[in-house]
């Protein structure tokens, strides 16, 4: 005799490449906040690997999307999620990277109930600026940074959506109407069709930090916390030449390098000193852990044969129980 407990039931199946979708990553992102790709938490058929898998939005050229995914495989730095697996040519486009529990920045604001504390924004700023500097050092431009491109994990941010601006429309074509781009995070020169360059990432960083600190990527100057106001405003200069260098951002926000480090040794990155326990509000840490528990407990029906796709939605935050009941939206 087997006694079956109450638990989330077998859910419908959506298949992307070899993966079966467990839930959407971006459920809970407010509708006015664009996401430049469809992102899902999905599982391999043996159940042993869980990944974040991305698909292009409608209207994005699949070849451009896959070219950016291919380039993102080589991204370095602690705070990026490079693609590790790509659709074969001829297949529907997708790319995947290992799952780790993390909330898109807009969801983090929703869970927190408003703008994030200044210390959290500061830590995000230093981590993202340091990692963008690494990427620029690889002779790459991220060109996709916006609030939804930043995932918040318990140990720090993870940057995704590499090359979203280039994928959305080729250089020379105005991008104001291009799919999935956050108007507030799109540097004016790229909106006008210019080729994305490193200083455009500084603009997008400013817009993303403004979002974290106020809830808007195009805030009024007065809404910004005074300690970040001047720096973020400079990042958002229309003229790239007036934007600060990434190292200036790090220096201004991280303060002098850790004073207790004996000569000859330095912390691996300046962001590490800001990302210690307590960097993120407790409620957000709880929501991230909650996502992990939900995905662990989630069951999917692996396809035996092709089945009609059914979208599943999973809401972060929620009731303070161990593993919440997933919510069905379709």
């Amino acid at each position, binding site marked *: *005799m*087997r*006694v*079956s*407990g*109450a*638990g989330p039931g*077998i859910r419908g199946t959506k298949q992307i490449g070899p993966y*079966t979708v*467990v839930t959407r990553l971006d459920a809970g992102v407010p509708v006015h906040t664009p996401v430049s790709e469809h992102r899902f938490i999905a*599982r391999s058929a043996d*159940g*042993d690997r*869980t990944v974040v898998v991305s698909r292009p939005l409608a209207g994005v050229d699949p070849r451009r999307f896959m070219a950016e995914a291919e380039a993102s495989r080589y991204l370095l730095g*602690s705070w990026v999620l490079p693609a590790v697996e790509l659709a074969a040519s001829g297949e529907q486009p997708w790319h995947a990277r*290992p*799952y*780790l*529990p993390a909330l898109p920045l807009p969801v983090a604001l929703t869970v927190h109930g408003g703008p994030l504390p200044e210390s959290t924004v500061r830590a995000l700023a230093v981590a993202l600026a340091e990692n963008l500097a690494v990427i620029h050092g690889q002779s790459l431009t991220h060109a996709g940074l916006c609030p939804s491109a930043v995932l918040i*994990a*318990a*140990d720090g941010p993870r940057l995704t959506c590499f090359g979203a601006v280039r994928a959305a429309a080729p250089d020379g074509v105005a991008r104001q109407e291009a799919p999935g781009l956050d108007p507030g995070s799109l540097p004016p020169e790229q909106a006008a069709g210019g080729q994305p360059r490193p200083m455009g990432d500084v603009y997008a960083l400013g817009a993303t930090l403004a979002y974290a600190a106020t809830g808007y990527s195009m805030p009024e100057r007065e809404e910004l916390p005074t300690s970040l106001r001047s720096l973020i405003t400079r990042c958002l200069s229309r003229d790239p030449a007036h934007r600060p260098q990434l190292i200036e951002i790090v220096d201004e926000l991280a303060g002098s390098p*850790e004073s*207790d*480090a*004996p000569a000859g*040794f*330095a*912390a*691996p*990155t300046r962001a*590490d000193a800001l990302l*210690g*326990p*307590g960097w993120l509000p*407790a*409620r957000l*840490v*709880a929501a*991230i*852990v*909650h996502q*992990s*528990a939900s995905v*662990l*407990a*989630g*069951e*999917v*029906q*692996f396809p035996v044969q092709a089945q009609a796709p059914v979208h599943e939605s999973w809401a972060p935050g929620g009731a*303070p*129980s*161990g*593993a919440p009941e997933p919510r069905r939206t379709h």
Partner: protein
Amino acid sequence: MPTPLTHDDPVALGPYRLIARLGSGGMGTVYVARSAGGRTVALKTMHAAIATDPAARTRFRLEADAARVIGDRFGARVMDADPLAETPWLATEYVLGPPLDEAVEAGGTLPEQSVRALGAALCSALGQLHGSDVVHRDLKPSNILLTAYGPKVIDFGIARVIGDEWLTRAGAAVGTPAFMSPEQATGQEHDAAGDVFALAGVLVYAATGRGPFGNGQAADLLYRVRYADADLAGVPVALAPLLAQCLAKDPGQRPTTAQLAAQLHDGTGEFAEHLPHELLAEIARRAADVWRLVPQRLPAPAAGPETAAATAAAARRPSRRRFLVVGGALAAGAAAGGGAWWWQGRADARGGGGTTEKGGAPRTRNIKPLWTYTFSAVLSDEMGSVVPQSLGGIIVVAGAGAEAVSATNGVGVWDGNGRSEERSWQTLVTGGRLYRLWIGEETDDGIGSAVRLQILDPKNGKTIKTLVRFAGTNDELPTHQLLCITDRVAYVVVGKGKDDGTGTFSAGETDTLSAADIETGKLLWSKPLPVRFETSSRLHFLAAKTVGSRLVTLQQSENGTVHVVVWAASTGAVVWKQPYDVDDPDILRCEIAADSDHLYLGGSRLWALRLSDGAVTWKTSTERAYGPPVLRAGILYAVGDNAGLTAVDARSGKALWTERGGEVGEASTSGPPILGTRYAYYKNGSLLRAVSLSDHTTALTYQTSGKQFYADSDAKLVLAVDGAGMTAYPLQ
């Protein structure tokens, strides 16, 4: 932390495929398992042999029922169960959070705010149980998991329906003395009020790191539970009267769970907001780590040697109680300065890397050592290892006693064993000085005086200067450790409390990891360490080293599990902590290999852990065991089981080369190789093997009986230490 499946674990139970082991005990095993739909669960089993007893099987079924009664919020959600299977099993939610005892051991006691929130939530949990006429009967720190959303009560192994006579008899002997109610201790009815008593004990533990009746033998504990007042020292003042009321001997005097909850907490805020940041970070780390779990199964072990070794280890239980003098040589004073010695072929051996025999070619195999020195006393004990430290041509060997030897000829220089006042030696050479942490002679009252950090004269072993006095500590406790000294800061383990003369940890002893400025003598910070059982012989740390602004330690817990714990050197805050799975913790007693951003560990497989967060940058497969590595110029050198000396690129974890041409079946992985400029040395079978760093073949072999090997880079010696003495070989 999950460990791989063993060869005889089943593939699946019911519809669940087993992935890893979470733990094992006398009753059964708990696994990580996955359903066909990919749901990850904790799967608890009962051994089939035990399940043949109908009473045990019934209790297993009741546990599943009780777990359902407590519900998803305050318990681990029951997913599925089959109490009638040959091996009964119960599948529950995989809970992300440490048990309370682990959390306190690793991160220290909880602040009042956390204790209150925890207490209120546990009241609700118990209220839920009691409302359904179920009592837990074994509430204790290890049965409470701390999640980001509140505690979850698990292990209802002896929970029962109130008034169930038959199971009362079946379960009469169970319970945990330290948290048992007086009525349970006397075999009477333990009802809801008994759970309140246990709950208060749990909260005392959370606030102070120990139960309200201390530790010790079950019989003593039960006596104290029944007759002694609860020890509430260290409990926040505002909580003490309330907890004292809960710990009343008369169940009728104790508050109900609802009354207690109302006095503990007003219910504002989320549970996570009441937790210390470090604990919440630990919970988050577990929530991320579970995604790194890869199904693994160990091969069947070769029969024989392993069990023999285990038996031998169990039989050997020496105490740290002073040292034992061998053969009376000390009293006779025959060998001036103590210790007998031999000096063999030194000049030849030094010259060319091989001794010459009868005018022939230089000998390259089975070469005799430069010199051998026999200890005048037994320096080794169960708790630590005997470590040679070299300064100015004198090698000081310290353990349960200390002796000093000339590096040039192995002649004894001085012998600290005869000094009655010194009990055990913790020495360290760094920056051209020999330091010693004083551990004094045991006295009748066991109270002692403050532990001192001193500079010793290597020429005679006498104290030159006392640098730091650790006020309030007891120098008689033999469990102190001198971990490392960097940039004028000494990191030590010092203990308070009365020495009970067992030569191991004492009842009531509390230890701290402390940092002190050796120039000013000031204590910089002090962090509580887990309380050890009395008679435990596991020192807190196996190895420690500062890297940049961090103190990296290999910390050992009571049950022998090892964690890599990284502390902020300036504040003592735990930066991160990772469980480290190793078969034999003792082989980790050596220098930790590290560069500015990674730690490299061996012991089972080779691992590179990122210093910033403990993330695993790379690791070798489980198929081959490696001893601890040594790092030089971006290359790790380690001894692989059945592979011998192996060089690995530290950045990528790719093997660069493995020694060639030699028999490697007896390569010893119980220590790091010793690096010279031309050769790397390690023990293979009964020989010390020197492998050429240029052509990767065995160049020389030496006779050795050594167990541990150390480099003396000053005197250019490889030093081999075993229970009886020390042997020296040229380090080239």
